[in-house]
């Protein structure tokens, strides 16, 4: 029943990978998060990691918490007996998260190039990017980096041929058909169109991430003054 929708593969000794149809498709990704929520709601003690991907879900298993010698078989049996079905599972409902973004200028050095590539004015490109409702397909690449599905096709643009060595924390970028936010300063090859003053990921917080896998996200344009106002608490914190 369940294996109609996904195929189970071992991922080394103590992890399973549930692979859905391998397409970059918001509908498939939604099934991944629905299944993750269903598993989470009955989370067994041996489940160490539950990692969503675009079209797959990994289960990391603590073999010491499983009495059976073959932990992977035990996990496969548990999945089968649980009769998990991503079509029936309902997602945990997370509120839509709004990300304030100052587009263009020093915060978005690639906005003009992106607009030109799309055949739009910078203003139109901003409006289109901010009109979308996106889904956090997964957090990966770096701690707290959200890969967002749902970009207006007209805004898609290939990554830079040579990645920048330094992208500022909070930078909002477009890489191919996806958009995302760099939580931390570092190298990056996506087209940077704006920046949020929010600290997207802080391992010292009780909940390190602001957005969760599967959550929906919207961008809200702000001006430089608003950016400075919202960024001030962060700057004060980091000086301490």
């Amino acid at each position, binding site marked *: 029943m369940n294996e109609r929708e996904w195929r189970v593969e071992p991922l080394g000794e103590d992890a399973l990978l549930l692979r859905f149809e391998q397409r970059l498709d918001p509908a498939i990704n939604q099934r991944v998060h629905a299944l993750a929520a269903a598993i989470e709601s009955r989370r067994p003690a041996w489940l160490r990691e539950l990692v969503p991907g675009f079209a797959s879900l990994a289960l*990391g298993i603590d073999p010491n918490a499983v009495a059976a010698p073959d932990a992977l078989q035990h996990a496969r049996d548990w999945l089968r007996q649980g009769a998990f079905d991503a079509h029936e599972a309902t997602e945990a409902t997370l509120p839509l998260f709004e990300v304030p973004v100052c587009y263009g200028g020093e915060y978005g050095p690639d906005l003009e190039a992106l607009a030109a590539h799309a055949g739009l004015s910078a203003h139109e490109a901003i409006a289109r990017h901010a009109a979308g409702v996106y889904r956090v397909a997964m957090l*990966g690449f770096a701690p707290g980096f959200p890969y967002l599905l749902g970009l207006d096709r007209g805004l898609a643009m290939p990554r830079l041929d040579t990645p920048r060595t330094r992208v500022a924390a909070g930078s909002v970028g477009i890489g191919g058909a996806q958009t995302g936010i760099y939580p931390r300063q570092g190298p990056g090859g996506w087209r940077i169109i704006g920046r949020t003053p929010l600290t997207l990921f802080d391992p010292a917080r009780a909940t390190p991430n602001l957005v969760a896998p599967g959550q929906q996200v919207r961008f809200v344009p702000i001006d430089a003054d608003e950016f400075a106002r919202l960024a001030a608490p962060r700057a004060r914190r980091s000086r301490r």
Partner: protein
Amino acid sequence: MNSVHVLAAGLLTTLQDAGRPGWRHLGVGSAGALDAWSHALANRIAGNTDDAATLEITLSGPVLRFDVATCIALCGARIDARVDAQAIPMARPVDLPAGTVLELGACHEGARTYLAVEGGFAVPEILGSKSTDLRGGFGGMRGRALAMGDVLPLASRATRAVAAVHAASWWIEQAPDDDPFPTIRILPGEAPDVIEALCDGPWRVDAASNRQGLRLQGHALTPDTARERISEPVFPGTVQLPPDGRPIVLLADAQTHGGYPRIAHAIRADWPKLAQLRPGDSLSFRSCTPAAARRALELQRQRFARLALAIEGRSRAC
């Protein structure tokens, strides 16, 4: 607070413990000692539990001043270690008086040495671990490798009277097995013919290798398909095959998701061996079954339990 002063940092010295499992869904890798075997042994010898933080020293070590008398242990790659003119031996407890300057030099016959200090290091736990996450920039010593001038806090408050440097007369045989030309056992991935070619080694460790992964040089493999893949979760041990045909064996700092074909998976029992491979070293791969992987890990655990018992007996005797 009792502390250790970093007078020179070494090539890449990081604080690591047993790692940070349970956060991959947030894009946070596991980190932790690459050679968990040597890390745990050093801890046991220094009187700690396996999960205390140790210093993971890469290829060339730091110079450290201990402002309090303590006991240390060095395990893993043999390292040039001295206090003044006195050589400090491996794999046994060594008492150091307050003010000792320990000079750690080059690693030999391995890439990584673990330095455990009695009581462990008292850096804060972040997401349940003291390990340094170099890619995320948190954990350990401010999320980075040690730097000159760092002061590492020690957890131990006990003050012991140590008059002079003293190394125990006993030591332990610390290798997890006796294989000089490492053969890494793998579980097959998705493409059987690529596995055959992978096992038709030998491979050489590329200089661009790091805690994220071992990059290998050899006869380039042909990926089974040129089509673009969708990124999906990967774990330490995963062997990836990028389009250039040169496999990458992911290690503890592996990113959480990867888009390259996963051609195999190095078994857990052989991770300590992977951690000790130096740039230029040779290795080969051998296919094994999940049952054999479990057996190998169980044998290694039994071996560790015997060593731990011996260490405990010795420590009580002195």
